């Protein structure tokens, strides 16, 4: 499967995301924010970082980048899209995912190896995990607090759109300990922690994040 990884001005984790895509058994294709061209990819990763310097709101300006017009259209047509950290913020700003991400409730940047429980394994990004599986991956964010109004929150809980939840500690004040969500269709996934940093024993918190990238290869075969 060809997986595009978008680089915005201020993206930090695009190279790690490309590497994780390759380790997961897929082909990584570099995409540029200024090009309205997905280069024929089958899936897209929006990586972490501080796109456009987080000016205005995290992800608010990236949403209108030329490449995003294509990503939004493809996502609505069912293409698998994974937004990690800043990518999650961009997906919320694009209204591809419900809710929003605000500054951590304790106001400090947080960087830790975070335990999560995978709640939804029906997406093309999480099919390699088993429901309820606990994984430990890297978390690093300043504005990772997931919020939504009561009605939206009840809907995403009721529809099984919560993808992963924080265990042990809630590192940023996210409602219902939500670490990641998916859209109704299940093809668009946003995750605050960083699976792409946890794909090799040499660095990071282990290899628990690799499943996000091998899931896609399995989905391609299936």
């Amino acid at each position, binding site marked *: 499967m060809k997986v595009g990884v978008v680089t915005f001005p201020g993206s930090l984790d695009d190279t790690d995301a490309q590497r994780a895509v390759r380790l997961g058994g897929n082909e990584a294709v570099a995409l540029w924010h200024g090009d309205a061209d997905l280069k024929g990819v089958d899936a897209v990763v929006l990586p972490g970082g501080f796109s456009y310097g987080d000016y205005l*709101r995290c992800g608010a300006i990236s949403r209108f980048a030329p490449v995003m017009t294509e990503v939004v259209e493809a996502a609505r047509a069912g293409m698998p899209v994974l937004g990690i950290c800043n990518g999650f913020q961009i997906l919320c700003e694009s209204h591809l995912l419900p809710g929003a991400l605000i500054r951590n409730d304790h106001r400090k940047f947080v960087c830790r190896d975070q335990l999560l429980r995978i709640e939804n394994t029906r997406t093309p990004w999480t099919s390699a995990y088993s429901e309820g599986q606990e994984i430990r991956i890297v978390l690093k964010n300043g504005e990772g*607090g997931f919020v939504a109004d009561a009605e939206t929150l009840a809907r995403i809980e009721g529809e099984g759109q919560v993808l992963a939840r924080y265990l042990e500690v809630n590192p940023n004040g996210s409602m219902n300990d939500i670490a990641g969500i998916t859209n109704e269709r299940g093809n668009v996934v946003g995750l605050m922690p960083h699976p792409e940093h946890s794909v090799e024993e040499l660095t990071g918190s282990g290899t628990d994040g690799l499943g996000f990238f091998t899931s896609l290869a399995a989905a391609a075969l299936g």
Partner: protein
Amino acid sequence: MTTRLCDVARVVVAVMPKPEILDPQGKAVQGALPRLGFAGVTDVRQGKRFEIEFDGEVTAAVLAEVDQMAETLLSNPVIENYTVTVEDSESAPENAQ
């Protein structure tokens, strides 16, 4: 000294976090005030103010456009509310302290 050659209209968009949304920045400011000796502050909410200038008059069409700007880019309707006001450029302070 600035000399304006034509009338400039200024529209102000004020964006605030919705009341039910936690505002950690406002809380940080609120926490700092008593330490500086300002007593009696019960709440602080922090928002954003955009000053948008146009040549000529602010017509209904211009205001409708500003409303659209506020809705699509300047605010995130999921977490923020906004207000749009027209400022009289004559009375607007050039260099407010």
